[in-house]
């Protein structure tokens, strides 16, 4: 069992959790992910590692309420436990030898960009961190971003904060498809990259953004949408939060 040592609501649909998982904290690097199960009947879901503290033995995850499992996860409070928490999985981001880097993230995806930016910044690299959100109310981790960058640019789709801009010109992308074991066994996480089938869990999760077939990835990601909607409806109304 893995204890939740901190929970912070970042915006109405995005939550941060710091979880005690010393074995994961000891080894993990930016760009990697974990798989967790909330309880005994729980589904295995992959989440990117947003931060880690090797001394405290904790790993931080940031998740958006998108389906039944993230809803269930959001019901857990500080001091409570998660059933399973395994990792680190996937390959780490290659940061060695980089001098000046633009790190780009949008929405909850900024949680993926954050540890990479922090690592680069800690290593003395000049980091231009460009993050985008739909509007001002959805901005998360502003202070953390400031501390992890040389130059921070925040944009919003509607111009309610910073520049009115969309974050679209990507090179390296971190993919988070549907996944079960995360160790290269089930093949559920496959993506088309440059016309070849790749497995996000062991070949990724990062790929060249110009080569990923996003239409296919989005269609595959929506595979269980009906099930998720139904499962969310069945969870307690008291806890339910609006997903816009």
């Amino acid at each position, binding site marked *: 069992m893995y204890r939740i040592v901190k929970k912070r609501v970042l915006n109405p649909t995005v939550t941060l959790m710091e979880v005690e998982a010393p*074995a*994961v904290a000891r*080894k993990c690097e930016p760009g990697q992910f974990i798989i967790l*199960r*909330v309880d005994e*009947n*729980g*589904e*295995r879901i992959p989440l990117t590692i947003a931060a880690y503290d090797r001394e405290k033995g904790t790993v931080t995850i940031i998740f958006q309420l998108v389906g*039944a*499992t993230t809803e*269930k996860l959001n019901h857990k409070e500080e001091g409570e436990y998660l*059933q*399973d*928490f*395994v*990792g*680190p*999985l996937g390959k780490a981001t290659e940061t060695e030898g980089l001098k000046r880097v633009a790190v780009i993230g949008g929405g909850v995806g900024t949680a993926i960009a954050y540890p990479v930016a922090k690592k680069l910044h800690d290593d003395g690299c000049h980091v231009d961190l460009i993050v985008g959100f739909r509007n001002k109310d959805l901005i998360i981790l502003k202070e953390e971003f400031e501390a992890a960058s040389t130059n921070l640019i925040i944009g919003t789709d509607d111009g309610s904060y910073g520049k009115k801009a969309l974050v679209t010109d990507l090179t390296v992308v971190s993919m988070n498809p549907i996944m*079960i*074991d*995360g*160790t*290269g*066994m*089930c*093949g*559920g996480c*496959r*993506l*088309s990259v440059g016309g070849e*089938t790749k*497995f996000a869990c*062991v070949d990724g999760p990062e790929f060249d953004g110009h080569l990923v*077939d996003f*239409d*296919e990835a989005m*269609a*595959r990601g*929506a*595979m*269980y*949408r*009906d*099930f*998720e909607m139904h*499962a969310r409806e069945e969870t307690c109304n008291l806890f339910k939060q609006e997903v816009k």
Partner: protein
Amino acid sequence: MANMRPDKNPMPHQDPQVRSGNFEEVALGYTKEQAIDEAQRCLHCKNMPCVSGCPVKIHIPDFIAKVAEGDFEAAYQIIAQDSALPAVCGRVCPQETQCESKCVRGIKHESVGIGRLERFVADWHNANSTEKPVRPASNGHKVAVIGSGPSGLTCAGDLARKGYEVTVFEALHLAGGVLVYGIPEFRLPKSIVQKEVDGLKELGVKIETNVVVGRSITIDELMEQEGFEAVFIGSGAGLPMFMHIPGENLKGVYSANEFLTRINLMKAYKEGSDTPIMPLKGKKVAVVGGGNVAMDAARCSRRLGADVYIVYRRSEAELPARAEEVEHAKEEGIIFKTLNNPTEILGYNNPEDKRDPKNGSVCGLRCVEMELGEPDASGRRRPIVKEGSEFEMEMDCVIMALGTSPNPLIKSTTKGLEINKRGGIIVNEDGLTSREAVYAGGDAVTGAATVILAMGAGKTAAAAIDEQLSKK
């Protein structure tokens, strides 16, 4: 004088009509009377041909003699000398190509039902024996086992019985490997696997779940920092194979591994499980492949209410699955489209509505008919495409059961570990890899094979590890 009845005592089964709607065990097992009667068919041949057909060399005539006497616990003890998982092997071993294929009774008539007797004995022991395994005194040597499937559990059990301090590292949240994520409940109840795992724990084996060796910790770290003197790699099957035909990434195309994991490990078919699976009631499912895994996927689909087709490019005679599994599948209403090969998976696309949720889902399978030509390198007749035979079938789901290639994780994080061109770890006859004190066995070495072969490899490696460490 042996019982000269020509045929085996038939195995009692759940009715096919009933069982195709549930996940309960299909074969119900012998009664005491049936077991004794069957055991009396054994001729007790001096040269014991059956033993030569068993990968772990169980003393078959000896245990059968005890069954005939009605001393089932004694029979169990004889099996347990050589096999760590008799309740499992009695169910999933292909006895017809192993021990039973060598049985003298099988020359003219049917062989003795060795597998059925093994299962009976193991089940009898599990139900009636209260004896706890005795934890031996530690010999102070630490051994790490990677993976808790059949090879890992066997290796761990053999070493623990000799006093080694064994830790098994499992990547998933539950121990058992393919026995829990792959083989369905109706063929191998999970309570049986749990019982075997619990037995190992009583012997002192530590099982650490949620540890992915290669990521959470490397083999070098296990040996240099954690004090393990030897490592056994039993990490099992790896990435599923696909056909590289158009449409394989459509929604509704599963690898058999993913499909079976959702059902067996994650219990997606049960109320209360958070793990989703495509609703299959009244839908059409094609399972591509002809092995035991294909049969498992097909029979699971059937239990979820689908009309199921097995699509296999050779003829029925070449099906690699056990005859018994094919028979069971047919009884349950699965349709065999042999000598057919898929060329494309067809996807739904609504040109009027780009947001139609059905877009990108499987709607059909395009196949060609095949005929058999000259034998190929595998000795089986090569399937050749029949000119102009292309046709389409309506389909909602396609499951690829074509085998796997070994998991790339450990080889990519362990320096000096040599692998062959198919990705399997190279080992010598003792199971030793190119790295000192690192052994391997099971599917990680051979590619997809059977439970009993993996157990045999775990056993061989355990003996070699004991040989190496006891000299220290």
